[in-house]
């Protein structure tokens, strides 16, 4: 079965080409049918492969020749490992549901078919990224998913904010991508190959064809460069700013790309290339710190945001921070496990949020929501499940995976990271329930008419919610003591352990649960029972902090002043130099010649005899000069 893994990305590619040929006026039903069927077929093949891998372990990569460079060959191909079999399944599963959900969400949009084209292209690229057997191919699809993200964020091109957000998403991730680019090119220069296997061997042997740096430093350098790529894609601090803005895109896009799949690609890359990172303790420390900072930073911002999608987006950033932190403390299994569970419950949260937004006519501000439980019970339930999973309440998925990460952080001896993670967990529970209470309980604060018309969407939108809810509940059990850590065994492919694995500490699980419950409780007090007035807090003692959080710690503004403006200014200065100095010198020659000629033209008096005389004397002088040159008159 494994040798047929190439079919999985092929399905969406074929779907994309079909839709492209059908054109933008294809019927919605046909478009949806093609897309969903393709994704479903991919999902089924993925499941078969998953079981195959579960039984037989990883396979060698299948590669074919792509380009010859002198004696070296660059190849493309595919491979199946436990990690990417898991990813394939998750991606195709969520893709199927999101494609289905979009039928309701995008219904009636003039560019409905285009939307599905882009989504299919994205799914193809994401799957291609996952099954890549070498870093070059990873980079290719890495950029392609970025492109699709750009296209989909800017799908409503006529909205200036959407256009700006799309551009920002592409450029900020590209800054990271350049890090990755340099990283893989350096790896190629040093090892002569892009293939994972060859690269890992070289890194283990620490033998590199590079002389300007010691092998150890080289490993650290490359690891950090590659991690910069991951930072961009997985929205790690300080390259996180694009992800919340990317919420300008349609909500299904946010669910698929900016929650479940693409943003996890950074984590996936670090996990897939873990031997590179493992070889450099310094790089791992950096990764852990960045992950920890991101987790707490995004969680703090999430506390005060009012846009329902942005809160969920910041929670995504925060959770990605968790995964990265886990990798930084070598908790490989925990990280990949959290990657999977997070994909389920975050997609769920986004789709539920989308369902809410769809029901109340594309309003996203939670200050103008409330009391929607009565109107949207199913959405309410599923959102609650997602929120519980995110908060880490047992037995929901998030509990098991987050607990593993905290355990890893604690056991690695890095107490700071552990404490950061714990605080972030508290914040997470608080803000997601803040959203829940403000959206579903109390009185509706928007226009009455909207509330009257709000109703649960059709089955195309609710079925995905239900399915994801189920996964959000049960997925966590896969790596619990109850199933004897089945996921861990699977992800290690029956071979030796990657990273570090620890036995469950029940006291820690209890502590995490208590912290999460505390967050929920505080949220309940503030937004449900109203026994604490949040306004008073925000305007009172916590005002500076509230402002900081509300304005996202002014990171965007800082970037604008410190990077964007100076670069544009440099551009203007250089343009000025180009126009007036470089081209100015050129024009100076031109003008100088012209002015000189203006004076010289008076020597042209039109008298043929004068010309003749001048020629004669000139000739004589030349003869004299020639005679002088050959040694004078003998």
């Amino acid at each position, binding site marked *: 079965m494994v040798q047929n893994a190439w079919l999985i990305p092929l399905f969406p590619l074929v779907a994309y080409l079909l839709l492209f040929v059908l054109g933008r006026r294809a019927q919605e039903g046909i478009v949806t049918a093609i897309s969903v069927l393709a994704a479903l077929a991919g999902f089924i093949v993925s499941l078969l492969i998953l079981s195959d891998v579960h039984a037989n372990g990883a396979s060698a990569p299948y590669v074919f020749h792509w380009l010859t460079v002198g004696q070296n060959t660059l190849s493309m191909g595919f491979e199946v490992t436990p990690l990417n079999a898991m990813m394939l399944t998750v991606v195709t599963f969520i893709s199927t549901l999101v494609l289905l959900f979009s039928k309701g969400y995008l219904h009636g949009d003039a560019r409905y078919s285009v939307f599905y084209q882009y989504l299919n292209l994205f799914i193809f690229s994401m799957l291609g990224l996952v099954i890549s057997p070498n870093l070059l191919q990873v980079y290719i699809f890495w950029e392609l998913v970025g492109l699709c993200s750009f296209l989909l964020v800017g799908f409503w091109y006529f909205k200036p904010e959407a256009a700006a957000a799309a551009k920002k998403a592409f450029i900020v991730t590209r800054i990271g991508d350049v890090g990755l680019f340099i990283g893989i090119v350096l790896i190629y220069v040093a090892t002569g190959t892009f293939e994972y296997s060859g690269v890992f061997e070289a890194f283990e042997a620490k033998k590199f064809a590079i002389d300007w740096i010691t092998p150890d430093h080289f490993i650290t350098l490359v690891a950090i460069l590659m991690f910069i790529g991951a930072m961009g894609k997985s929205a790690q601090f300080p390259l996180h700013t694009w992800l919340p803005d990317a919420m300008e895109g349609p909500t299904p896009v946010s669910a698929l790309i900016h929650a479940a799949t693409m943003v996890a690609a950074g984590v996936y890359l670090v996990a897939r290339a873990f031997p590179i990172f493992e070889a450099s303790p310094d790089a791992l420390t950096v990764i852990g710190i960045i992950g920890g900072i991101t987790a707490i930073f995004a969680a703090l911002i999430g506390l005060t945001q009012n846009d329902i999608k942005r809160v969920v987006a910041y929670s995504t950033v925060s959770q990605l921070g968790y995964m990265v932190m886990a990798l930084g403390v070598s908790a490989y299994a925990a990280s990949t496990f959290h990657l999977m569970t997070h994909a389920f419950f975050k997609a769920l949260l986004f789709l539920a949020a989308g369902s809410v937004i769809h029901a109340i006519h594309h309003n996203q501000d939670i200050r103008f929501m409330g009391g929607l439980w009565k109107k949207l019970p199913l959405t309410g339930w599923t959102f609650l499940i997602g929120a519980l999973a995110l908060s880490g309440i047992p037995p929901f998925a998030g509990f098991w995976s987050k607990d593993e990460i905290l355990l890893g952080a604690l056991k690695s001896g890095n107490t700071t990271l552990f404490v950061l993670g714990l605080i972030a967990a508290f914040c997470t529970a608080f803000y997601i329930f803040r959203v829940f209470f403000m959206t579903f309980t109390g009185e509706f604060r928007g226009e009455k008419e909207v509330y009257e018309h709000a109703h649960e969407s059709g089955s195309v939108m609710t079925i995905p919610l239900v399915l994801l809810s189920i996964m959000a509940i049960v997925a966590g059990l896969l790596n619990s003591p109850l199933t004897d850590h089945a996921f861990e065994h699977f992800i290690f492919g029956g071979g030796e352990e990657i990273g570090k694995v620890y036995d469950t500490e029940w006291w820690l699980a209890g502590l995490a649960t208590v912290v999460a419950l505390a967050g929920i409780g505080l949220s309940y007090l503030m937004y449900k029972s109203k026994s604490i007035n949040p306004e008073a807090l925000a305007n009172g003692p916590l005002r500076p902090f509230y402002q900081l959080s509300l304005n996202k710690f002014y990171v965007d503004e800082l970037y604008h002043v410190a990077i964007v403006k100076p670069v544009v200014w440099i551009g203007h200065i250089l343009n000025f130099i180009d126009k007036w100095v470089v081209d100015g010198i050129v024009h100076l020659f031109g003008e100088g010649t012209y002015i000189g000629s203006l004076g010289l033209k008076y020597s042209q008096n039109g008298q043929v005899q004068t010309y003749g*005389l001048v020629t004669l004397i000139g000739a*004589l002088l030349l003869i004299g000069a020639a005679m002088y040159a050959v040694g004078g*008159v003998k």
Partner: protein
Amino acid sequence: MFSGLAITGQTVAFFVIALFVIACGVMLLSMKKVIYMALSIGGVFIGCAAVYLMLEAEFLAFIQVLLYAGAITIMMLFAIMLTKHDEIEKPEPITAHPVWAAIGAAGFGLVILWVVKFSGIKWPQATPDSPFQGQDNVKLIGEALFNQYVIPFELVSVVLIVALVGAITLANKEEKN
């Protein structure tokens, strides 16, 4: 300069002719009336024809008389008649131009004289026997012209035709309007 030059009939004739030619040339420069200038050039042409004879180019000497002394001089005279022929060059304030022209021309002449006389070039020894001895000059020219130089000859004839047509057109143009 002329040391070692035996005084023979030939040399005497040469010097007489040369003096005549140069004198006519100087007259050309110094005459005031245009018509005299044109006449003195006739003298130069005839003198040149004599020089050609001394150089054993009988045919060319003949052509020279026919073409230059005959046709061209007459054509000049016609041209002068058609323009302001009685015009006398007015004396002008002396400018630097003629002075420089004189210096230039003299300088150029000196250079050539230097090359001819003092540069130490070994000129080929003059042979008393003519290289064309016993051969008919006209026949020689004719053979060369119609064998070796037939293409240049044809081209020259084309040039002449074009010049003829061109000259007529140029001179005619005004009368139509």
